[in-house]
């Protein structure tokens, strides 16, 4: 099953990459604000159903993919729960 994990810097956490991207976009003339840079992790998960896959990916996020001190995550799974 395909899973996509979105990892984001938590609100209030300094995000120098987001700030640099925002400055560059403004220099290009785009009137943007509050840019934040996170990361995307695509995975193939071996699971019997969506609920099981979600539980597995949550464990992966909590143990490795995101650092709970500074990052939040969202999980998207193909198929319906």
């Amino acid at each position, binding site marked *: 099953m395909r899973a996509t994990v979105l990892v984001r810097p938590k609100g209030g*956490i*300094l995000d*120098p*990459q987001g700030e*640099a991207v925002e400055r560059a976009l403004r220099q290009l003339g785009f009137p943007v604000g509050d840019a934040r840079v996170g990361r995307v992790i695509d995975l193939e998960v071996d699971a019997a159903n969506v609920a099981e896959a979600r539980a597995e990916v949550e464990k992966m996020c909590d143990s*490795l*993919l995101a*650092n709970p*001190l*500074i990052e939040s995550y969202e999980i998207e799974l193909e198929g319906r729960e």
Partner: protein
Amino acid sequence: MTERRPRIGVLVFPGSNDDGDAAWALTALGAEPQLVWHAEPELPPVDAVVLPGGFSYGDYLRAGAIARFAPALSAVTEFALEGGPVLGICNGFQILCEAGLLPGVLRPNASLSFVCRDVSLVVEPAETLFTARCEPGQTLVIPVKHGDGCYQAPAGLPAAQVVLRYAPGENPNGSDDDIAGVINAEGNVLGLMPHPEHAVDTLLGSGDGSLILAALVDAARERSYARA
């Protein structure tokens, strides 16, 4: 009678690059360093452990995030929980934070630039085994060289766990409250971004790093006598 040379483990991960300097410095300060490959499930008999600087596993995901699952790190965690002295330098500090042996996390420098220069550090008043050779308030000059050194402290970090701060105006990375080094609540695990192993010979600039490393050697020696 000559002093015993205590054995100090220096971990080597794929991507470590200060293991050699750490071993050299520890030898110069009277210890017998022993390199420990990351895949080793157990530590050899050692009385202290150093996690050196570098870019373990290419800093993939987050600096130190992958190294903490190395078999040797389970052994280091066990050693630390038994009270063994553990020093994490730069990438070693990042690994200790990711492993939960130290509070907080290291993030990319606020400037997004790699910094490589000498910085002045102030030794905080907390008495620790790692600063036993320093005076409270003493200034040490030790180089930093890192891209991910912006320390993010957890809410409510006790001041007593902050061991080193960048001197006013010297913060090279945007670290919270100028924090350069933190210790665990038990007082046996220290992580710091500056590199004491690069500052043990005045021929190369500063010898101030030897104050921290020699204190680690002292603690290891004491432990080796206690064990004997």
